[in-house]
């Protein structure tokens, strides 16, 4: 992809120092990525602990493990933490922060101090919201529906809303940084269509971050104003409209799910070509479809409200648009699949995670078709079918892609190699555990088990037991990387500059990179994914 930059000095970005202030006052995007990574992992396990407790409770039909209120707070905690403290920042704030300047051939992001500020803002918001949830409990569900959240819940609702509001600023700051960096800091010769797909998806994600998050801010503002000042915008007794809340909330929250998944799609688009030794199939289609998904994502929010009392005709329009958005997603899936054709495929850990992503994303996406079909959604909405659908996409898709990315770029980020054997074991374990946990939930939903239920009729128990058993395996699969990746930091073999033989500017510098990323500014002269088949698999007549 580029002419390799000379590498006269090989100091790494870790060299400048390991004091606390070298981390907490850094403006180096690579260190900030680590700041985010450590906090995000902590939050992931907090959210995961809540999920474990939920699955424990659901092992039996009766509500015997915790009280009603505790259970409600538990699933609210799980949702808020996973959505806002983990999924929304996940890939952008960690891998995106680390890799975007490298992939563009730049020294850092456009606004390094803004980047650090975004982490502090994130931590502040998370601390406030977490405190609110743990100290008195928030039991509105992560969706804060009114009038429940404005009139019928505890005081901590306002504080939690403020915490999430603050996190929203962090998202917007990251989005602005990425947009400006992508426009202004590309290396010479790096036109838009020479960019890796990961950059395209980060860019599309950033656009959504910047345009959708303010609407969440407005919505939370209105909730707090309702609770503190008594304005009645969502209160029917004062002439307000509870459905207005839903429209405003979902106008943000649907694009939010694209903030979550698009970067994962980008990661997989980097890994599949590398371990197939073939260019990504249909590069331009994949790039355009990423932008298309971001755009269409703003137009489908009403599909969360088919049975809410919104007009039938609005439902028809939103259903149509929701089916439209299936098209660019399908395009990507076909392109990823065909990338492997006539390639030379190997099964490193990150490749296994990526293949898992492909399968799970496809099934989750197909489940989405059921929900987009109006008459079907009437039966399936607000049941475990929806829960299964979004967990297939968010966990089966997004978390898997996140792990794929961490494993792919780990040598670059740390300069160490990890145990491939344990990596593959963890990948397969989490894949199996995931399916065992969430596939039964499709069946539960079709049979009518509603969401957010603390107790349930006996005939649902068998599937719940399977799901809870799966959760144990899944948890195991997720905990394993902590060990072998952590181990690799101390005892892992040193990583070469480009252990996977991947294309991309980030592989043209040392592992780990020096503080300013490149010894000499790189120049780009050809497009991305210029892979060649290895000697052993090259067709005989190929010269």
């Amino acid at each position, binding site marked *: 992809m580029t002419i390799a930059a000379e590498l006269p000095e090989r100091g790494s970005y870790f060299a400048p120092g390991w004091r606390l202030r070298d981390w907490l006052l850094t403006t180096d995007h690579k260190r900030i990525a680590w700041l985010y990574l450590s906090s995000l992992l902590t939050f992931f396990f907090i959210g995961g602990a809540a999920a474990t407790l939920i699955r424990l409770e659901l092992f039996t039909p009766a509500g015997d493990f915790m009280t009603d209120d505790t259970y409600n707070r538990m699933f609210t905690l799980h949702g808020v933490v996973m959505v806002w403290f983990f999924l929304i920042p996940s890939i952008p704030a960690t891998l995106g922060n680390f890799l975007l300047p490298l992939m563009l051939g730049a020294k850092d992001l456009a606004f390094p101090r803004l980047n650090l500020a975004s982490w502090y803002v994130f931590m502040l918001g998370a601390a406030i919201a977490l405190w609110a949830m743990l100290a008195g409990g928030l039991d509105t569900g992560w969706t804060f529906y009114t009038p*429940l959240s404005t009139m019928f819940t505890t005081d901590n609702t306002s504080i939690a809303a403020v915490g999430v509001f603050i996190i929203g600023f962090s998202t917007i700051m990251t989005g602005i940084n990425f947009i400006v960096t992508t426009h202004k800091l590309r290396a010479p010769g790096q036109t838009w269509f020479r960019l890796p797909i990961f950059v395209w998806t980060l860019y599309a994600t950033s656009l959504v971050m910047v345009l959708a998050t303010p609407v969440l801010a407005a919505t939370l503002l209105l909730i707090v104003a309702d609770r503190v000042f008594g304005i009645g915008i969502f209160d029917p007794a004062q002439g307000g409209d*509870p459905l207005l809340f839903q429209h405003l909330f979902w106008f943000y929250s649907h694009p939010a799910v694209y903030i979550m998944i698009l970067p994962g799609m980008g990661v997989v688009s980097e890994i599949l070509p590398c371990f197939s030794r073939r260019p990504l199939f249909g590069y331009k289609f994949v790039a355009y479809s990423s932008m298309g998904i971001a755009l269409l994502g703003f137009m489908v929010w009403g599909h969360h409200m088919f049975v809410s009392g919104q007009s039938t005709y609005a439902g028809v329009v939103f*259903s149509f648009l929701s089916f439209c958005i299936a098209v660019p997603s399908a395009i990507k899936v076909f392109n990823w699949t065909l990338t492997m054709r006539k390639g030379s495929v190997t099964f490193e850990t990150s490749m296994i995670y990526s293949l898992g992503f*492909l399968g799970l994303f496809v099934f989750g996406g197909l489940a989405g078709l059921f929900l987009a*079909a109006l008459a079907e959604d009437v039966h399936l909405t607000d049941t475990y079918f929806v829960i299964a659908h979004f967990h297939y996409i968010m966990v089966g898709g997004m978390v898997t892609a996140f792990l794929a990315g961490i494993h792919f770029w780990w040598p670059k980020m740390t300069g160490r190699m990890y145990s491939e054997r344990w990596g593959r074991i963890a990948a397969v374990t989490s894949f199996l555990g995931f399916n065992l946990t969430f596939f039964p939930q499709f069946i539960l939903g079709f049979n009518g088990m509603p969401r957010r239920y603390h*107790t349930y009729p006996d005939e649902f128990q*068998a599937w719940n037991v399977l799901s809870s058993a799966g959760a144990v395996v899944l948890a195991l699969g997720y905990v394993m990387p902590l060990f072998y990746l952590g181990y690799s930091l101390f005892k892992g073999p040193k990583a070469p500059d480009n252990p996977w033989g991947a294309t991309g500017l980030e592989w043209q510098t040392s592992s780990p990179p020096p503080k300013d990323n490149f010894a000499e500014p790189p120049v780009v002269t050809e497009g991305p994914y210029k892979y060649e088949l290895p000697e052993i698999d090259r067709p005989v*007549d190929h010269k």
Partner: protein
Amino acid sequence: MDSIALHPIEASTLAPQVDLLFYALLAFSFGLGIFLTVLVLGYAIKYRRGSKADRSGERSRNTILEVSWTTATALMALGIFLWGAELFLQRDHPPPDSLHISGIGKQWMWIFEHENGRREIDELHVPLGQPVVVSLSSEDVIHSMFVPAFRMKMDAVPGRQTQLWFQATRAGTYDLFCAEYCGTQHSEMRGHVVVMEPQDFAKWLASGPTVESLVQQGQALFRGLGCSGCHGPSATVHAPKLEGVYGHPVGLATSQTVNADDGYIRDSILQPKKQVVGGFDPIMPSYQGLITEDDLGKLVAYIKSLGNSGGTP
């Protein structure tokens, strides 16, 4: 656990249609999913490093292929959309001979009232083979009435009235769930729908504790809330008469004409300035916040009855 939920019972006219769509989607999903899985695994295995597969002629783009699969996906999506939408639109058109029931959700119970005034809590008795319309609302937060066996669900929203209808096709007792999280005892806000043979239902309906019909209760409210003070025969205030109003066109002050349906009656009580009748001043006070959904339903039932029988208030 002596029973395992495998397939929900089909107990309404809608259920088999929804299930047909479900199975079509399932077939399509498994078909496409398995096709893709086979492709992915197939390519992964066939083209694994060191395998003797033929790798000549590899390309990394194929516009015709891209357009073809995009078009195919789009067409399938369109087909499913049309099917789902068509079935969905039936929601707005309950058959004319439907039984009317009013349903109120409140934390954390369901209250149903039949036309003759019989009330049920967390249970709903309906006759087999006759369409039933349930008008839903909520006293507090958003709830949702969900009967899996009927494949029917609709939110009960405070401040507005929504509607669901179904026609039961099997006698029996079916689960009723609240499907919109509504606070502490959301999971306990459950009940049953009991479908009975028509004769049994009629007997059941008549045998309940003697309660005044909704219309009679509404009449009492009409007096108690002061409505008759302006709308009654001996009122001195110039207010529209309500006999014969329901179901007929009404001329508004803005020169438009609207049909006096349920929504109109409801709005006239809660937001009287919204559609003022032509020739009258907008002086009626609003009852927003002063009347529960329960009572509102009875009042509307009463005023509807005036429309037909021409009774005196």
